[in-house]
């Protein structure tokens, strides 16, 4: 189950860990938007992607996450890259038509297609890395408290946001428990001769059913008992509750928001103004 440890909280005392979850969520949204901005040309796009990458790596070092964890999560993107390359290669283009990388038979593959595919891939990688940093540096409970804070405006529409955030935190709480169930049921079914690894697709699908049905049943039983236990301990979603964990906004949060906000502003300005640093600053014309 080691591969499923992805996205888990990594206890450590780093500046990123100390930030308020609301700050981190806000910064994450800004940074993801930044990553997906379009720029004047490829060189600027990749320059900005490089800058973002440096930022992400800095966060990574700060939070003491293992790079292997990141690489593992990015491994599945290979398929994505091939898929994107295919799409872009097949799609007819109207721009950069003189810039052919190579021919397959008579069919030209443009550099622009390859670069576009790479661009999307880099964006996805950055987005995944950013999300991983958030979940690694924030306790699930704090994260749900942060979500709840952002959802609080819709409380005025009669939505019980506290109950929704309880649902979310219970879901997070039970992921490890249910993973243990998955392992246990798989072992039990394997010992009865079910093979989850080999066989034709139809055979494997049937094997999967033998996992899913008991899993759903046991999860429903768990939730039933959990509901009793929660009610027995006085939980009433409509009643007034206090909060043990309080979110607190510190100076560090303000600095983080300002820094990320400034970076975001700079990138948006560059994007909107189609600013090309290579032309303006480096005095070179590269395409």
């Amino acid at each position, binding site marked *: 189950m080691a591969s499923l440890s992805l996205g888990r909280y990594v206890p450590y005392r780093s500046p990123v860990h100390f930030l308020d979850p609301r700050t981190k969520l806000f910064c994450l949204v800004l940074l993801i938007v930044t990553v997906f901005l379009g720029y004047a040309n490829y060189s600027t796009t990749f320059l900005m992607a490089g800058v973002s990458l440096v930022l992400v790596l800095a966060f990574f070092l700060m939070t003491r996450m293992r790079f292997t964890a990141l690489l593992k999560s990015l491994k599945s993107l290979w398929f994505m890259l091939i898929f994107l390359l295919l799409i872009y290669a097949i799609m007819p283009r109207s721009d950069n038509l003189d810039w052919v990388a190579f021919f397959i038979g008579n069919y030209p593959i443009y550099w622009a297609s390859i670069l576009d595919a790479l661009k999307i891939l880099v964006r996805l990688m950055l987005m995944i890395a950013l999300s991983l940093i958030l979940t690694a540096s924030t306790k699930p*409970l704090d994260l749900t408290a942060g979500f709840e804070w952002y959802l609080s405006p819709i409380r005025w529409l009669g939505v019980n946001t506290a109950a929704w955030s309880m649902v979310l935190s219970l879901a997070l709480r039970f992921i490890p428990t249910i993973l243990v169930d998955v392992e246990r049921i798989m072992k039990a079914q394997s010992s009865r001769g079910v093979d989850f690894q080999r066989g034709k697709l139809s055979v494997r699908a049937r094997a999967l059913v033998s996992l899913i049905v008991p899993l759903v049943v046991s999860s429903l039983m768990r939730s039933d008992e959990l509901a009793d236990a929660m009610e027995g301990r006085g939980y009433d979603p409509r009643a007034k509750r206090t909060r043990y964990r309080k979110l607190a906004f510190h100076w560090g949060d303000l600095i983080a928001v300002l820094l990320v906000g400034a970076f975001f502003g700079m990138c948006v300005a560059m994007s909107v103004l189609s600013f090309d640093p290579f032309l303006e600053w480096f005095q070179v014309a590269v395409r």
Partner: protein
Amino acid sequence: MSLAIKAEHISFSYAKDGPRTLDDVSFEIKEGEYVALIGHNGSGKSTLARILAGLISELDPNASLTVFGMEYDKEHSAEIHSKIGLVFQNPDNQFVGATVRDDIAFGLENRAIDPSLMDAIILESAASVGMEEYLDQAPENLSGGQKQRVALAGVLALRPSLLILDEATSMLDPKGKREILALVRKMRKENPSLTVLSITHDVEEAVESDRVLVLAGGKLILEGKGEEVFSHRELLEENHLESPFVHELSLALREEGVDVEPTLSEEGLLEELCR
């Protein structure tokens, strides 16, 4: 001494016109008493626990249930709830918080207790079950016995007057079981007015109780002191229940002509033998 629970004519069936899970059960539990409710699987004991805890409220019209002198109605149910602590069977399914600390805090949050007071209460109740070093641990890093101790701490933090243990030790290994029982003993020593209702199919757990109730097929078939109840061996056997080991041993010794009174506790048997 006042009554903790007074239950009269409790009947219940899950399906309308279905078989009765509980059939006209009446009993009383005094304040400060330790009562064991034993019964085989499907005897209705967990249903009874859920009724006593107010988790099932649709009772038969003839039934009457008062807890600490209060009827279970809209007016009192919140107050009754605040007096009852429940520990269930499965350690995983009652662990609500992401860490031990958060789990103990869960009950306090529900009672709208001032968060600035919570840390002290959490530390105190964790210490009383010996879990103070695990406060920031997640449930997946704890053993079943440890999780059950956290459940007890969560209950303790709310200072209940009635503790209901619904098969609280049945999923634990012998060591975990002993630890939980020792903790309950300690809790009663520190607070003699604490009423404990232990619901179990393990007759050995009944040894420590002041009184034993036996439930079979939804009916209360036996009630009384442990020695008395376990002397009805045939009736118990009919209902798939055994006597505790020490009791069996004392009876077997009597049959062999040794002059001992039937007893439930090891110490009691030793005294009888040394007499």
